[in-house]
Every structure is written in structure tokens, then in C-alpha cells.
């Protein structure tokens, strides 16, 4: 079907396609060509990542490895795909393809025409970075790609300046915090490099294991170096992930960015951050050092995650802009993911991985529904959504279905992840965390209901502009994501198969 030669090159092509096509967009993307090139790149990448995930799941060792420039493993950059990053890769590629389809009309109404080809070039660079972070097996390469995606993200957020000038301050805020986070990651990688002398993640993990044996006997300074490095890394990644006390950049960045950018960021950027955390904690540093060493990191994460769930949901209730409600809800949902990987058991990790995917679908779809509102109304204030349920039946129906997913109603994808999460919390003996998850769901009922009530039972103001349902190119990707979130809530076999395989490989259980 696919020639072997091409199949072998897929890992490199997944990152190179958006990079090269992004450059071509910047060069010749005028006159509306930009979107077509971006769409082509997204579809190619999506097809490639599905093929790659299939390869990974059917290879005996659950890994596919690609050597850049054919340099042997510890010296060159290795692209290494296992079920975890194969799954995240597919999530990022799926969301990117859907949001790119959505972006055509939405972005054209928010970004000035002569800037459109730059927008799509940066859009593709952002995808390059996100896909690269996910696929690479080299710690420093991860940092560089993280910065590529972050720089692209700051620019994309700033492009919301045409509709609301606060996009600019949100972008600079995000830039300052994001750069500090990235610098911490750089410093953390430096410490680990000092100890191990290698940058390849698997090699680093092996050498750290060899060092751990000597802990408590000779050379205790290694212990300090590893833990300091891990601390820097963890704080840096948490900034990128927007884990609770470090989330302050997120609400404004999501609110004032163009609608398509909000959908892309909410569904992919923080998810990739979660992936980096899982990768560093489980694969590289190892849970023995990270959780059971001198610093009980998992307790910190659990406290942060618990606060994120409760305060994020509470703050979401108090907002008057629906985009901000979703942004604060994202903070709470990131709390669920963080809680999942802090539990340190198979069900918890499965919950984290599966929630990365499920929440990406749900939030991506919901932000697109709000994109339709912004496209038709020009803003997303709650009072302006009154009675829109009858005017925009499809989009508001999708929004409601997504909202049910955020609550975790059975037969939606959110229920599957929360089921795993509560099981994992009880298994780990953390009953208070299970309780917090349930309380968080109740709070989610409140903030979702507040919007749903306004949409369906509110009365439209007299003389409010008449609005129509959005064009088909905006409805299709939205329904695709929301439909998928319901499909994977009913039939969770595929997603839980991949997520459980990811959890098993991370915990070192032989498949």
C-alpha cells in the first residue's frame, strides 16, 4: 500500500512537512493560497501520524525509532515513538487538521487580508513545534522545538489584536512567563546533562538508573544535581502546562486570541505540556527519584491539581465571557490530567493519557462553537448569547454536547477518563482526590448549566442583530470533534487500548 521506503521516513516527514510547507506559505501564500497549503500539510501529517501509530501498536516492542542523519543513538538525534507519544501525536494532528479546516472563514474575519499568509505560515510552524516535541527522543531537541512552538504561539495570540487590543498584552504576558518556563527547562536539561553526559532520553534514563544505585553510598552530590535539575524541569514544564499556581497567562491568552487559535491552543499546546511532564517524570528521571526520592513531587502535583480542579471550576463559574469560562475550565481539566499522572499507578496514568485525547476533542469542539458565535456576533459575552439556541441550533447543540463531556456525563468521552481517574485514585488510597474529582464535576455542572441556560432559555434582546448558522466549513470540523468525543465515550476500546499500552510501557510492565 505505502512503499516501505516512504513508511520508514514517516517520523521525519511528520515534522518536516509543516516546516517546509510553512516556509512555502510565507513565500507564495498570497491570494488565499495560504490556507490551501496549510490544509494540505495538516492532512498529510494526520495521515502520517495515524499510520505511525498503527506501526507502533503492531510492532512487537511498541517502539518505532528513526535516526536523524543516520547518526548512531547516543550521538545523534533520535525520533522515538511509543504508544504514549504516538497517541499524543495523533491527537495533535487530528486537532490541527480539524481546526485548520475551521480556520478558513474564522481567521479571514479576524486577521487582515495582507497578513493571512503570515498567519498560516506561523500556524504551520506552531504545528511543527508541537509535533516535534511529541515525536523527538532527544532532550535538547525537545527544548528547541518547544521554543519554536511557543514563539509561534505568542505571535498567533498577538494576531487577535485586530478584534481586541488586549490580545497584545495577553501575548506579552504569555511570552514573559513562557520564556521563563522554557529557560527553566533548559537549565534542568543542563543539570541532567552534567550528571549523565548525554541528551538522548533513553540513554539518559539508563545512565540515571546506574547513578541511582550509588545513592546513599558514595557521591551524594549527584543526588542533589539530579533533584535540582528535575525541580527546574518540573517548574518549567508546569508553566507551559499551566498547572494551577502557574496558570495566570492562560485565561487572557485563550480569551483574546483569534477563535481558531484558541481552539488549537486549548486542544494541543497544554496537552503537549502534559506529555512532556509524563515523559520526564516516568521515562527519564523515573518515579523512584521523582516521587519517592528526597522530594515527594507527587504530593505537590496532587495539591496543585486539586486546587486547579476546585479553583479553576469556581473561577469559571464567576466569568462573564464564555471564552473565559472555557479557559478557566481548561485549567481545571489540566488539573485532572496532572492528578492522573501524579497517582503513579496504571489506572491513573491511563486516565491522564486518555484525558489528553478526550479533553482535546471536547475543548477543541467547544472553542470552535464559540468561534462560530464570534464569527456571527463579533464577541462572546454571556449576555449576548441569550436565546442563541434557536438561532444557531447546530453550533449550540455541539457546545452543549461538549459541555456534557466536560461534566463527565456517561456516554461522553469525559466520563471514560474520569472513570479511570476515580478508579486510580481509590486504588492509590487517595479518597480525598476521588472526592475532589467528583466535586469538580459538580462545579462543572454549574458553569456549563449557566451557559446552557442562557443559550436556550434566555430571551434575545429586542433589536438584536439577526444571526444565521455558520457556513459548512466551520460546522463540519466542529461536529467531527464533538461527534468523536461522543463516539469515544460510547466505544472506548481503541482509546483505552492505546492509553493502557502507553501506561504499561511507562510503568515498565512488559506487554
Amino acid at each position, binding site marked *: 500500500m505505502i512503499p516501505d*521506503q516512504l513508511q520508514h*521516513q514517516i517520523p*521525519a516527514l511528520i515534522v518536516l512537512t509543516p516546516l*517546509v510547507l510553512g516556509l512555502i506559505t510565507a513565500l507564495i501564500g498570497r491570494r488565499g493560497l495560504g490556507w490551501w497549503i496549510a490544509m494540505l500539510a495538516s492532512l498529510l501529517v494526520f495521515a502520517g501520524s495515524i499510520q505511525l501509530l498503527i506501526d507502533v501498536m503492531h510492532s512487537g516492542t511498541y517502539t518505532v525509532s528513526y*535516526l536523524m*542523519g543516520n547518526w548512531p543513538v547516543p550521538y545523534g538525534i533520535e525520533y522515538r515513538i511509543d504508544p504514549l507519544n504516538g497517541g499524543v501525536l495523533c491527537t495533535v494532528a487530528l486537532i490541527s487538521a480539524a481546526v485548520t479546516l475551521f480556520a478558513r472563514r474564522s481567521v479571514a474575519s479576524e486577521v487582515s487580508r495582507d497578513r493571512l499568509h503570515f498567519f498560516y505560515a506561523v500556524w504551520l510552524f506552531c504545528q511543527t513545534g508541537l509535533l516535534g516535541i511529541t515525536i523527538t527522543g532527544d532532550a535538547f531537541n525537545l527544548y528547541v522545538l518547544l521554543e519554536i512552538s511557543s514563539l509561534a504561539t505568542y505571535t498567533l495570540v498577538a494576531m487577535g489584536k485586530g478584534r481586541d487590543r488586549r490580545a497584545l498584552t495577553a501575548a506579552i504576558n504569555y511570552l514573559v512567563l513562557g520564556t521563563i518556563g522554557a529557560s527553566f527547562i533548559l537549565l534542568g536539561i543542563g543539570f541532567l546533562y552534567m550528571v549523565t553526559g548525554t541528551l538522548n532520553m533513553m540513554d539518559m534514563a539508563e545512565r540515571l538508573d546506574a547513578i541511582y544505585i550509588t545513592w546513599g553510598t558514595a557521591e551524594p552530590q549527584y543526588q542533589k544535581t539530579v533533584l535540582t535539575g528535575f525541580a527546574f524541569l518540573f517548574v518549567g514544564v508546569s508553566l507551559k502546562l499551566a498547572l494551577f499556581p502557574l496558570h495566570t497567562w492562560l485565561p487572557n491568552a485563550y480569551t483574546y486570541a483569534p477563535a481558531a487559535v484558541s481552539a488549537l491552543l486549548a486542544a494541543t499546546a497544554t496537552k503537549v505540556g502534559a506529555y512532556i511532564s509524563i515523559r520526564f517524570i516516568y521515562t527519564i528521571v523515573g518515579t523512584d527519584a521523582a516521587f519517592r526520592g528526597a522530594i515527594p513531587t507527587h504530593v505537590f502535583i496532587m495539591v496543585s491539581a486539586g486546587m486547579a480542579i476546585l479553583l479553576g471550576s469556581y473561577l469559571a463559574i464567576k466569568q462573564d465571557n464564555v471564552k473565559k469560562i472555557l479557559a478557566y475550565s481548561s485549567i481545571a481539566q489540566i488539573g485532572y490530567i496532572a492528578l492522573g499522572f501524579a497517582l503513579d499507578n496504571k489506572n491513573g496514568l491511563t486516565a491522564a493519557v486518555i484525558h489528553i485525547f478526550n479533553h482535546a476533542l471536547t475543548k477543541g469542539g467547544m472553542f470552535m462553537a464559540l468561534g462560530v458565535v464570534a464569527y456571527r456576533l463579533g464577541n462572546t459575552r454571556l449576555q449576548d448569547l441569550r436565546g442563541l439556541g434557536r438561532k444557531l441550533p447546530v453550533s449550540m447543540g455541539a457546545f452543549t454536547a461538549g459541555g456534557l463531556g466536560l461534566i463527565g456525563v456517561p456516554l461522553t468521552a469525559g466520563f471514560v477518563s474520569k472513570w479511570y481517574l476515580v478508579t486510580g485514585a481509590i486504588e492509590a488510597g487517595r479518597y480525598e482526590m476521588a472526592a475532589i474529582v467528583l466535586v469538580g464535576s459538580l462545579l462543572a455542572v454549574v458553569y456549563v448549566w449557566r451557559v446552557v441556560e442562557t443559550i436556550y432559555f434566555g430571551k434575545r434582546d429586542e433589536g438584536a442583530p439577526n444571526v444565521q448558522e455558520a457556513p459548512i466549513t466551520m460546522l463540519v470540523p466542529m461536529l467531527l470533534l464533538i461527534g468523536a468525543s461522543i463516539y469515544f465515550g460510547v466505544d472506548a476500546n481503541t482509546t483505552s487500548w492505546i492509553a493502557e499500552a502507553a501506561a504499561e510501557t511507562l510503568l515498565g510492565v512488559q506487554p
Partner: protein
Amino acid sequence: MKDLVVLRVVARWNIPFMVVFGLYVQTHGELGPGGGFQAGVIIAAGFLLYGMIFGAQELRRIIPRWVTDIAAACGVLIYAGVGFWAMGNGYEFLDHAALNPANPGGAEPWGMTLVEYGVGLTVAAVMITIFNEITEGTAPEDEPVNKDYDNPTEMDLPRR
């Protein structure tokens, strides 16, 4: 600033040497310290000096925006092109052995040289683009510079 004789003369003398030195660093890169990044920045520094002395618009006149845009993209495409060439011939991305399969070790410097030329082109073009981006929209050349040194205005005095 172009009315200041000292600056103008020094710049006129220095810029050619900066650019030539940049080219030296570029061509010498695979044998000694140097390479595309450094060379690109040094070459760009020459042009930026020109832009600062004679005004950003004058710089844009000799190197229009579209030249730097295309140069920046072409540099990356050279880099990626070397990689794709290897891919097309059944090697891994950027495996320079593809350039000369008979003598893989001898092909390595060739691959590196090509890649570094791509890097140099991009870095130089991007540095100039950044300069253009930041100076664009600001008042065109000739910011108020007081040439009457005996009677300095408030702007020329060191801020306390």
C-alpha cells in the same frame, strides 16, 4: 546620523571588511571555528551598521524586503533540500553519505558545507528582517541629532 562625518567614514571603511570577514567565517567553517550562524550574523551586522548610519529606508532601498524574505526561506529550503535529497536516495534525513555513496566519509564535509551555506543565508536575511520589522513605522532617518557640540541640547546631555 549620516551627517556625521566620522561615523560615515568609519562605516564606509568597516562595512566591506565586516562582510568579507563574514564570508571568510562562512567558507572556513568546516575546517576551523566558524560556520553559518556566526557568518550570517557578521554579514548582517555589516548591513545593519549601514542601516543605522544611513537610515533604515536607505537599507531597504539597497536590500528590498522581498529579497530578505526570499533569502530567508531559500536558506532553510537549501538545508531541508540536502536532507530531502538524502531521503529521496533511500538514506535517512540529512545523512550526508547520500551525496557521495562511494565515499561516505568524504561526503560529510560537502553536506555540512551546503547546510551551513543555507544557515548563513537564512541568519543574515532574518537579522536584516528583524531590523526592518523594528524600525518600520518609526520616524524615518535623521532623528534629532545635535551637531552643535558647543551648545548641547537637553537630549545630548547624560540623563541623571
